[in-house]
């Protein structure tokens, strides 16, 4: 709970971390009341790049709103689009061909890996190690190239359509993806050797930034943050959607609740995503990628609908309230980092500033997604 900062007697001073600070990776501001190097109190200030996506939704038709979704979380844009198309398809009862669903799952998982790779590089950079960033971006480049060939964009994908996809994948993509899976497995091994078992890194992360399961519940933390605290919660498993029930994959869970646990969760998630991609490529059925019959204008029957998907950072929820019109009456985007970041204020009290920034990195923030 963020309380108003009361000026303390002359022992403390206020350190304004952000809105422009290398560790916040965007325009996030944390007003820290410091006692020397220790944080006495912190208040997170967000909203610097608030764009009111929810109001935009009310003024656009359902298909017109598709590109907005990828502007939320620019690192794992696919998952957000996936959530939106699933929500609309469910409400409007649009059939989706199986092939489209498989391709969606494959691309979403590839995007998840690329998102985690950026996190990995940036996180180790927060800790002062520079080189992993370059290696991670090198691997990510392969994903971006593959996805660019299919979707037409490298970052803000608008690939999914209601009921299907914009473009079918070709053999080049399938072969390239198989090559990438092999390459990525090797890279992951190297990352584990180079970074995961590094003594300094382990010392910096173990026992730092403890987040208890109870705290997760109070703040609604999801994704790797919750899974690092011993909560076995993954929307792909708990509330299966799309073709995820067809895949055999594990949900990594660690009980320590520290930054290192969150680190390991994400690293293992990349491996699991590789497994999903591999299975998806094996099982990829032939057929159309768009339904034969699709309503010309998408209109949702009156009522409200909730859909959640597992995005790169946790459970992304989308609530659509419809009054039967061409555009939503109200659309709410539930972003995972918004809840994950919220617990920072409480959890970082009493931490060293260096540890607090490492902890912030382990939450994997994407600011546009918090501010929406």
């Amino acid at each position: 709970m963020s309380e108003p900062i009361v000026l303390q007697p002359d022992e403390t001073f206020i350190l304004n971390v952000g809105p422009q600070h290398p560790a916040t990776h965007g325009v996030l501001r944390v007003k820290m009341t410091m006692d020397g190097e220790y944080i006495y109190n912190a208040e997170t200030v967000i909203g610097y790049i608030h764009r009111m996506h929810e109001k935009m939704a009310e003024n656009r038709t359902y298909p017109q709103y598709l590109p907005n979704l990828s502007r939320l979380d620019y690192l794992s844009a696919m998952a957000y689009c996936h959530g939106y198309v699933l929500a609309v398809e469910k409400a409007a009862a649009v059939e989706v061909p199986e092939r489209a669903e498989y391709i969606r799952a494959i691309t979403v998982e590839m995007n998840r890996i690329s998102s985690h790779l950026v996190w990995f590089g940036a996180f180790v950079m927060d800790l002062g190690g520079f080189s992993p960033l370059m290696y991670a971006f090198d691997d990510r480049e392969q994903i971006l190239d593959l996805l660019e060939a299919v979707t037409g964009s490298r970052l803000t994908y608008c690939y999914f359509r209601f009921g299907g996809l914009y473009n079918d994948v070709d053999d080049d993509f399938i072969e390239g993806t198989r090559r990438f899976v092999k390459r990525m497995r090797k890279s992951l091994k190297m990352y584990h050797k180079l970074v995961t078992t590094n003594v300094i890194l382990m010392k910096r992360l173990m026992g730092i930034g403890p987040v208890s399961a109870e705290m997760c519940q109070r703040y609604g933390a999801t994704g790797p943050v919750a899974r690092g605290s011993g909560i076995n919660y993954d929307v792909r498993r708990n509330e299966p959607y799309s073709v995820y029930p067809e895949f055999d994959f594990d949900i990594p869970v660690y009980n320590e609740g520290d930054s290192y646990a969150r680190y390991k969760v994400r690293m293992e998630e990349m491996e699991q995503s590789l497994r999903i991609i591999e299975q998806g490529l094996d099982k990829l059925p032939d057929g159309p990628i768009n339904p034969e019959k699709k309503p010309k204008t998408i209109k949702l029957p009156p009522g409200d609908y909730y859909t959640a998907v597992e995005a790169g950072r946790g459970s992304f929820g989308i609530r659509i309230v419809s009054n039967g019109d061409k555009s939503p009456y109200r659309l709410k985007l539930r972003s995972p980092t918004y809840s994950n970041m919220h617990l920072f204020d409480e959890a970082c009290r009493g931490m060293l500033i260096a540890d607090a920034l490492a902890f912030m990195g382990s939450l994997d923030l994407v600011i546009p997604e918090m501010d929406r």
Partner: protein
Amino acid sequence: MIIETVKDKLRGLFPTAAKPAVAEHEAEKPEAAEAEIGVFDCNYAKRGYHLDVRLSPEQLLTAVGILFDHGFFIESITGVDWIKDGQLEATYDFCRYDFDLCRIVVRTRTPRANPILPTITGIYSGASWHERETHDFFGIVFEGHPHLIPLLLPEDADFHPLLKDFKA
């Protein structure tokens, strides 16, 4: 099943209105805003949630307390502006971490002219930002909130952009 337990507990909140408790109301027309209260089962496959709990603001804290005790976590809080009825609806989404899947939506309505609701930050600390956001967008005042200043909007913002009569 947690859903049955919670349903029973929540129905205990409506001692007089035994009637809606039985009704397997599909809530097809939320915009038809007879301020009905009660616990409604929902079609999960279509709606995406299992229980729709409609409360009066006074019952909110008790209901949320029940959900907290049963291990629900807070997904989000948001509002809907039902301008035709002159009411603002606050919507609280709850979900569970375990495999006993149960999504619950708690709604409560407050008059548009003077929207005041109790805060649930005492139960779910994470509600703080969600309530501040709802205050930003709809102007709903959460009584007892420790720090109800604009979060996403500029700090001197005196407008509420998600109200239907908001003109930029």
